């Protein structure tokens, strides 16, 4: 036989389950979004490159090195012309 505490516990669970069942209803996503995502997916190549912060960092460092080397080369070139 269930104790009074267990009976109260079960009743409380039953009420909570009933609330969950009655209140959690599926929502309707925006049909424009659904259609537009479908269109985008069908026009996307099957291999997708996901952006990575690591790659962006490498790109910034690379661009910095390139800009530095270019500046150095231009300065050397100008110096040579003047001489």
């Amino acid at each position, binding site marked *: 036989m269930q104790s009074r505490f267990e009976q109260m516990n079960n009743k*409380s669970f039953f009420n909570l389950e009933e609330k*969950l069942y009655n*209140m959690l*209803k599926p929502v309707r996503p925006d049909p424009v979004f659904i259609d537009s995502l479908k269109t985008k997916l069908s026009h996307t190549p099957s291999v*997708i490159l996901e952006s990575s912060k690591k790659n962006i960092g490498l790109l910034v460092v690379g661009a910095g090195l390139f800009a530095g080397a270019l500046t150095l080369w231009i300065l050397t070139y100008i110096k040579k012309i003047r001489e």
Partner: protein
Amino acid sequence: MLDNGRNEITDENAVGLACGGDPEAFSFLYEKNVTRIYNYIYYRIGSSSDAEDITSRVFYRAFGHMSSYVEKGVPFSAWLYRIAHNLIANWHRDNQRRKEVPLEDHLDLPHKSDQPEKWLEKNQELELLLRGIRRISADRQQLILLKYLENLSNAEIATIMGRSEGAIKSLYHRALIALREEMEQIGYQPE
């Protein structure tokens, strides 16, 4: 057979065809799963614009990894739910203080003008319930939403969550206890 001589896409062959790079098969899988994935994400985060963003990312990621997808006898949706689950975890990590958006525009609640008091009461009750759900652990949230939004059985949830049916039953019991405690903390009594 279709008019152009290709095999008709069915539930059984769609995943295989999509893995082989068939865009129509992937579209078929998209249409079958997009609403349920959106719903799952929406109830986990409470913002329709972010739910759209994450839903897009789920399908882009799935599309990009189709060629390496291995069929293991579990539903394709289980894979999508797992991707969604991981992206939601990232979203929560990155947006800890993001404000939640009211749900009234999307939910099937009685209209404001019909019975304003009833509408307000039900809407407030739902917001409290959702607040309680979002305060329990991610696994427990996933289980509650799969059970009540998708009406899935414990066996189906076990497949999606990669656990045994017994583990799901136990997790469900713990989820209800945790949810009840959270609801009490925020002042909600389920009568």
